[in-house]
């Protein structure tokens, strides 16, 4: 440990990679010693499972039967099967719908609107609204999901009392719409908080000038506000899209039903793995989901870089 009086030498910020010896003035060996625990953990809980998944994805590994004990290599047949699997295509399509409806449109628009409206509200009002929306976001998803199951319930559900539509089984008749509304409600707080802080970066003088020249609200948003918060919008959209694409809570509301009408990819993976027992195939789909997430992330990062 360096004593407080010893100035800590930091590596000069340089483009490209700094020479290894310069890692905070430590030798490579010692530096490795410091990061070893983290490396071990990441290796054990991230890298190893990921490699394991890739490996299982090219076998016919199952939960039961002979393949549970001695799986054999099946090359890419799990992947070619995914190409022809109508249920997988259905799951992909539903996942896109879920992300587009509840994250890209729902949480983004609602979060920004709340942030925009609240920026000039009295602090007390703002804090109350923020606290309430945040509650939805910090509650465990299981709790929130079951609250919504009760809300949508056919017999004695809150929604039917509100609308005066007794006996309507919302989760059965409109499963995707129910999921989109549920996930929008649950995730809005995050977008709202992010946009609240982003809006502080917009110089008041520019807003003032826009008002002076008589710009409409929409023009002000488009030409003054948006350029300042573009990075925030991209980052936020990327984050919430990834969370939504990988979200398992639809299972708690509908189990993917009725008849696969709300079976998003994570739910489909679960059903394939644990109901059909096909671990090889479900691992292959998991890997495809990972690749899709990576591609989406790359596109966003491109967009972000273009901005700078």
């Amino acid at each position, binding site marked *: 440990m360096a004593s407080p009086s010893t100035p800590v030498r930091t590596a000069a910020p340089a483009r490209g990679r700094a020479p290894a010896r310069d890692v905070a003035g430590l030798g490579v060996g010692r530096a490795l010693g410091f990061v070893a625990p983290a490396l071990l953990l990441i290796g054990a809980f991230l890298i190893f499972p990921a490699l394991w998944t890739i490996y299982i994805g090219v076998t016919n590994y199952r939960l039961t*039967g002979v393949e549970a004990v*001695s799986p054999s290599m099946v090359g890419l047949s799990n992947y070619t099967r995914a190409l022809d699997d109508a249920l997988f295509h259905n799951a992909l399509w539903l996942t896109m719908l879920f992300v587009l409806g509840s994250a890209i449109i729902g949480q983004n628009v609602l979060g920004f609107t709340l942030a925009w409206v609240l920026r000039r509200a009295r602090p007390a009002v703002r804090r109350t609204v923020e606290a309430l929306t945040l509650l939805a976001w910090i509650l465990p998803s299981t709790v929130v999901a079951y609250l919504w199951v009760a809300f949508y319930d056919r017999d004695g559900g809150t929604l039917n009392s509100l609308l005066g539509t007794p006996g309507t089984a919302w989760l059965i008749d409109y499963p995707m719409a129910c999921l989109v509304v549920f996930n929008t409600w649950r995730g809005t707080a995050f977008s709202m908080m992010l946009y609240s802080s982003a809006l502080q970066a917009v110089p008041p003088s520019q807003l003032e000038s826009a008002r002076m020249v008589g710009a409409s609200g929409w023009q002000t948003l488009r030409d003054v506000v948006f350029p300042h918060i573009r990075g925030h919008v991209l980052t936020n959209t990327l984050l919430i899209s990834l969370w939504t694409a990988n979200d398992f809570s639809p299972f708690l509301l509908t189990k993917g*039903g009725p*008849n696969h009408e709300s079976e998003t990819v994570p739910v489909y993976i679960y059903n394939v793995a644990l109901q*059909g027992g096909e671990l090889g195939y479900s691992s292959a789909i998991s890997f495809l989901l990972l690749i899709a997430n990576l591609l989406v992330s790359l596109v966003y990062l491109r967009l972000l870089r273009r901005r700078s």
Partner: protein
Amino acid sequence: MRPLSRLTTAGVLGAAALALLTGCLGSSGSGSSSGGQDANRNADAKKVELTFGSNSVKGGKSSAGATFISDVLIPKFVAEQKGKGVDVTVKFQGDGSDDEVYKQKLSLDLSNKSGPDLFQIDGIWVGEFAQADYIKPLTDTVGDAAKVDNWDGWQQIPEAVQALGSYNGKRYGVPGGTDGRVLYFNKKLFQQAGLPADWQPKSWDDIISAGQALKKISGVTPIQINAGTAMGEATTMQGVLPLLVGTGSEVNSDGKWLGNTAQLRQVLDFYHQVYSTGLGDPVLQKEAKGRDKSFAEFAANKIGILLESDYFWRSVVEPKEGVAKMADRDSAVGWAMIPAMKPGAGVKGQDFVSMSGGGATVINPNTKYPQQAWEFLQFMNSADMVKASLDGAAKITQRSDVNSEVLKSDPMLSFMAEKVLPITQYRPGRAEYPKVSAALQQATADVISGKSTAAAAAAYQKAVETAAGGKDKVTSN
């Protein structure tokens, strides 16, 4: 010191991971056992060590079972053997994981000729383990057919229940506790509908006509027969299979899976009849928590007839600790045997049918002490020990003599033990079963969503051919 690039680190980690992987999996699949072992090996040993494997753990999964085995059964067996001059140590090897995980660990051990000397497995794994040669018929392991067949315990275990530890007509293990399925009905609603309190339908038509009488009471769902995919295995065990055995057919017979047959279509027709004429509630079958909801509705006097297992009686509507308590359970809930489609139309020409589940205890063919393991198995399944394992609770055991004693005070469980167990059937223990079961669930889901029986059965045929691995492994007519 050479700078270590990120790539190298990743490479080393990756290589290590792959080495681990191939190491783990490379050792398995070592082929079937030669079976050339002497069954009397170590029969006269004075010092014996046995391990007992079970998917239960003190303070966790099936805690009561684990506590009984390690604190009561093992010490008593050790003491008994001491009397014979044998120094026995029995190690309890408890596991508290998911059934599928436990099964995999066990499979790996057995395929490598290791694992506990005795272990408990779910009855539907028996066939699968036997097919894979992990376990052998008791007469082979013990070596002396008379020794096994003359055990007096078999006299107390009904023939039908013995199927739980058997495969292809051979006993591989001794069954443990079991369960059964009946039609429960709400006597209060029956009275309102003018139906008898001692109702016992003799055909499916009797069930339908009782349903039609109940339909006249507003706010009541007459019949709940589990259907659809959301209920999972509950649809198969508490819906399709009890109906199917009522048509005289089984889901797997002579090694072939049931396909699109007349009997399957009869079952689907019954579903269609219940769910398209307002006798059942199709929406409930599609809800994620549909089964729990059906329990709540039954307890709230909103369901007339419900097909369930004794678990429903013991743990769902149980007045004190049930998940959907009925304070007046003992007077308000009636039960009846599940009738075949028509009298005599059930499997083996039966008038009434049921389905059961449960576990069995099996001897590892690779044990060093086959004779002592058989002694332990007999001791474990003796009347005294089976009774002791209940610890005062009323539960259906494998032994008729114990049942008639401990279930005396519970008319429902007595009925289950005396009337239902002798006529019950078990699921086929085969690796393809879960997928076939899922296909059956889907067929019922199709029917309640309004598909025709013919279309649902045709789609099922396709799914079951895929699951079974070929047309030749499926029966259709």
